[in-house]
């Protein structure tokens, strides 16, 4: 089998804070293949964005990032500079663009700087990228500023800017959360097309399992800095193994018409002092006595759920 585009083993990120070190990512391992969309799903504060920022080398210098192995397109990653071939799209497109430069100029910039385009060629290519992202009147729009765009259109321009880096892997950090549902769907559709056209790998971060149901190949569910379940999207949706994944699904209205929505009480644990064993124990409706004292093994079956419920008789008591 061909090596995956991105392979990360036991990624660990520690962020210093005034009140103690935050263990933001704790031994997360995942892969993204060419042309694949891996969705990273979880609540706010579970380490999803920090994972992406660590890959992009966007964390502050004081952050401690380490991994047992981190390879991107055969090259070592996390070596202290921005990785070529990777581009990122953020949640708020308005904050992505410089307000005093035209959108077209900013899309052309990586083409000139990274790929040696002349100014003229870069501008022409920027318009083409905007057209590819279905921005109407792209030639005129390229001369406009970010505040003259609507949110959905500007997010598509932000993806065009990311594509100007000619990436093999796109990191998308909640790119649709701030958008309308209909616009959300258009953006997801465009990402799906890029995946099949250019064999672009996509790491898609979201808190909404429903959103990725139709578009992601695989899902990694993240909780308290750990990946607690990872499997093919259809398996995660139809037979979620980890109680946390089950809770995320039970909160979706589309899956629970006519039933009371399940709302998970409480919030993820403080990652300055992460719980010693399973981090979900405190909120888990099915928690058992040993859950808070012994870490569950990572199951080697197809779904890799990190939970004692699926560990059979491996437990000591």
């Amino acid at each position, binding site marked *: 089998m061909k090596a995956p585009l991105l392979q990360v083993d036991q990624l660990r990120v520690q962020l210093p804070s005034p009140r103690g070190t935050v263990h933001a990512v704790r031994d997360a391992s995942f892969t993204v293949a060419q042309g694949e969309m891996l969705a990273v799903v979880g*609540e*706010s504060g579970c380490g999803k964005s920090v994972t992406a920022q660590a890959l992009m080398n966007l964390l502050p210098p004081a952050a401690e990032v380490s991994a047992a192995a981190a390879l991107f397109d055969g090259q070592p990653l996390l070596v202290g500079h921005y990785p070529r071939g990777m581009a990122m799209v953020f949640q708020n497109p308005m904050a992505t663009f410089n307000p005093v430069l035209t959108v077209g100029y900013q899309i052309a910039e990586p083409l000139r700087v990274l790929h040696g385009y002349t100014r003229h060629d870069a501008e022409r290519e920027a318009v083409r990228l905007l057209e590819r992202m279905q921005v109407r009147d792209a030639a005129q729009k390229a001369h406009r500023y970010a505040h003259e765009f*609507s*949110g959905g259109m500007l997010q598509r321009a932000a993806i065009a800017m990311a594509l100007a880096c000619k990436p093999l892997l796109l990191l998308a950090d909640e790119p649709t959360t701030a958008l*309308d*549902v*209909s*616009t959300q769907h258009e953006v997801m559709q465009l990402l799906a097309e890029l995946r099949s056209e250019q064999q672009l790998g996509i790491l898609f971060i979201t*808190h*909404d*399992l*429903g959103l990725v149901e139709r578009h992601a190949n695989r899902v990694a569910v993240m909780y308290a800095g750990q990946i607690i379940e990872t499997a093919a999207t259809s398996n995660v949706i139809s037979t979620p193994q980890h109680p946390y994944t089950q*809770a*995320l699904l*039970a*909160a*979706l*209205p*589309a899956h*629970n*018409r006519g039933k*009371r*929505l*399940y*709302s*998970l*009480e409480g*919030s993820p644990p403080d990652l300055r002092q992460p719980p010693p064993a399973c981090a979900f124990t405190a909120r888990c409706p099915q928690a058992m006595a040993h859950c808070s004292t012994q870490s569950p093994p990572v199951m080697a079956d197809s779904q890799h759920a990190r939970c004692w419920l699926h560990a059979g008789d491996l437990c000591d008591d």
Partner: protein
Amino acid sequence: MTELLRVSGLCKSFGDSRVLDDIHLVVQRGEIVGLAGESGSGKSTLARCITGLHTYDSGSVHFDGRLLPRRFSAADFRAQARHVQMIFQDPLSSLNPRLTIADILCEPLRLNSALPRDEQLALATGWLQRMGLPADTLSRYPHAFSGGQLQRIGIARALINQPQLLVCDEPISALDVSVQAQIVNLLLDLREELGLTLLFIGHDPAMLAYLCDRIVTMDKGRIADG
């Protein structure tokens, strides 16, 4: 069921662009009506006309059989605030950062009744419990809370004077999916207990279908169906 809100032939323009065009909408007491539509379709503007935050060009709004003025005076706002309240998408920006939660919750009581402070605080504590928030919430400031907690504080403030109609302008769009479920369950329980009527603006069709008795879709300032 009896009629609580009737909007007839409401039109509004900002400059040359017409944002609301001949809107007719009736909401029955105890009903949850969803207002759907894309950004810019006029949902929020309509909600603001109903609550007196915007004036409008023509048409009328009746609440509980009374015709509401097109332009609210300070006295109208005060009178209507007992009956209609609103919650917003961004709960942090709708709470005053320099007031404690106790002051935020007691303010509507102070303006509308002569309750002594300790009884106001008792009421506020009761509402916080009802919202599932810890007791020490009262002495803290808005920045100390998460988005879901702030939205619940916003709901407590809106309901503390027991209004009949709660207008919700995308109150869950900015929240995590699991927190969205908490807020939606809470709103359904409150309807059950208090007979509250809700006008709920949202853009997620699945969530609207789950929560609402009836959905009205707006498109370019007009009502498309419903």
